[in-house]
């Protein structure tokens, strides 16, 4: 069975400082991993995905994540936070072949202080 643990339910940073959102996963097979963002009253948007190619994945809006198999981690980072980054972030794993179902973490709320 697959699962995801987001290690922080809430992260607060100042604008212009780095962002780190932590995620550990558990999977019986080689997983695909994703980060999705959810702004208030908006749908989920895919930030980036790891699908067994390069372990360092670049996404939209300056975000990136590194797949570390030995640590079963997939942490999300951004060098410099912007006010518009304030949102809920979900780490997601999928291991089913074919048309994939997604398993979401519980989410990390990112707050960006001016």
């Amino acid at each position, binding site marked *: 069975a697959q699962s995801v643990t987001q290690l922080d339910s809430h992260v607060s940073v100042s604008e212009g400082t780095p962002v780190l959102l932590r995620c550990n996963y558990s999977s019986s097979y080689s997983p695909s991993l*994703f980060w999705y963002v959810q702004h208030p009253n*908006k*749908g*989920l948007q895919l930030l980036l*995905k790891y699908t067994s190619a390069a372990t360092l994945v670049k996404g939209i809006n300056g975000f990136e994540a590194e797949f570390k198999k030995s640590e079963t981690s997939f942490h999300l980072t951004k060098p410099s936070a912007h006010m518009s980054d304030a949102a809920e972030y979900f780490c997601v794993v999928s291991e089913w072949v074919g*048309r*994939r179902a*997604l*398993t979401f973490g519980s989410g990390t709320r990112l707050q960006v202080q001016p």
Partner: protein
Amino acid sequence: DAGVTQSPTHLIKTRGQQVTLRCSPKSGHDTVSWYQQALGQGPQFIFQYYEEEERQRGNFPDRFSGHQFPNYSSELNVNALLLGDSALYLCASSAGTGTYEQYFGPGTRLTVT
């Protein structure tokens, strides 16, 4: 190109009633997945449809059922509503096997009183 659309946006029902939620996938997508997102939690997979059949199912009771139409749109039905069914119901669409991206609609907010 319209993305994934869902209707209605909001819905209020009473315990014991039945509800139907609707989803139209993104153009070119043939697979629809439904998720339930309770307040303060991550979405949970309910089931997935393609070729008009339920192909995968999460840990949800039989009160949750669905349907996919020939035009790939889908319905989620919930019978005998419980207070605990209050949540945001999200529809996601994707295209074909081996496709990693799922595109999400804005959701339907269901409140059960």
